């Protein structure tokens, strides 16, 4: 049984023939499209290393069947920067040392992008920690991560205001 799905990934439309319906979005990205930014940590929706945006919402790509995504838009860590210009969240993670080994970082950054777009945290670090709890960091870089999210949110807000002016 072959399933044909059309998925837009980082702005590029892909026509994908799946020979097996078991393929998750994470495996599609990593094994078939060579987009290895999203990481396979637990593969069970517990660690958040596989976080990507599907139709602008952050989700665990390891628990999403690719077959169910016909017509969706997916953004991965590879799609964030504009050329050599980092996305504000990427820049803030560097500025605040929001990582050590880096394995969880793509998931952390995609989750932070989703969190900022959702707009429920305000400037409250407690709310940011709570809303980032689906992303584990075994190096324990949480302090830098929280600061990075706060800072990126502020930078995006200021940037937006500049755009409007």
């Amino acid at each position, binding site marked *: *049984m072959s*399933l044909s799905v059309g998925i837009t990934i980082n702005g590029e439309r892909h026509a994908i023939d799946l020979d*097996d*319906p*078991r393929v*998750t979005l994470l495996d599609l990205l990593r094994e078939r499209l060579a987009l290895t930014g999203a990481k396979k940590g637990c*593969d*069970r*929706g517990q660690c*958040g290393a596989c*976080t990507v945006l599907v139709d602008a*919402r*952050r*989700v*665990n790509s390891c*628990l*999403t*069947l690719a*077959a*169910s995504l016909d017509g969706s838009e997916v953004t991965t860590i590879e799609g964030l920067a504009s050329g050599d210009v980092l996305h504000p969240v990427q820049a803030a993670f560097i500025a605040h040392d929001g990582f050590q080994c880096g394995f969880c970082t793509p998931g952390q950054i995609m*989750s932070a992008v*989703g*969190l900022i777009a*959702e707009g*429920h945290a305000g400037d*409250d*670090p*407690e*709310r940011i*920690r*709570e*809303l*980032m*709890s*689906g*992303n584990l960091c075994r190096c324990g870089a*949480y*302090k830098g991560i*929280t600061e990075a999210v706060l800072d990126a949110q502020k930078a995006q807000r200021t940037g937006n205001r500049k755009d409007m002016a």
Partner: protein
Amino acid sequence: MNRFDYVQPKSVKDAVAAACAPGSAYLAAGTNLLDLMKIGVSSPTRIIDITRLPGLNEISWLADGSVRIGALVRNSDLAYDARFARTFPSVAEALLSGASAQLRNAATVSGNLMQRTRCAYFQDLASACNRRQPGSGCDARGGENRLHAVLGWSEHCIATHPSDFCVPLVALDAVVEVEGPNGARDIALDALHALPGAAPERETTLHPGELILGVRLPARGAIYASNTRYLKLRERTSYAFAIVSAAVALEISGDAIRSARIALGGVAAKPWRAREAETSLENAAPTPEAFAKAAELALSDARPSGDNAFKITLARKIVARALTLARDGTPKDMPALPASPFSATLGISHAG
């Protein structure tokens, strides 16, 4: 994961017809089902992807003030819906206390109801589990069982239902709308999940092929909006299942409670409504003594199923605390740590 046929029906009728074949399973977001398939606990031969079914994605307010939540509404969309959160704040708080932001963005209303127990023995194919494999025994009985059931369990199974969302829903008399091969029917949420008895493999009262189309909350639940809470004790402040939880709602007029709603989570194979405790509060003054008595009554049938006698004490305390906080008033804003018994009252910061 075993191989399966994948179908994506265009109508509820087609979905129900497809699901009547043996080995079929409905798939919504898959946050629980795919996980169970990966570890071999669930092995359907046919997956019926219902995510494209029309009309199941809406929150609709009916003329009588009740609300109908479509089966495919995502947990986060419901929790952040302004009118819903204002009208049923303890339901919104319960939703936001569950899982992670990513999972809430994907997981659906009906998937939440249909999620399976997180009992480690249920998830471990090498262990005996009557729920997974009828007649094989229950390794949880003599095993690591400090988080298992204290109400409604049997010698055959001591698992709990893990949902937060279902706890305030059952307190507020939610009704589940289903459609099956023999037509449509309503099931009180309180009657959806089955206690284990001698047949723990029968987890719900749904008939084969029946599909949940939505959940209805009666208008009466809205009278509690100003005095309602969901509180949840966890081993971590975030992203953890409940050790015990309580949803409470009070109708207070003058110096007395007119009516009360109380349900417990993490204590049984179903969200546990405590009706006797509710009745004890009718016409009582909202005092610590009245709340302690209600908490006592809510757990009067509880007994440990293993190393979990402490859960009975914790459950009493969480009921009394939830009643106290509900009396003091639903918080104007969603607490930074939803359902945490610590943050709202003590201003505790859990990190940083």
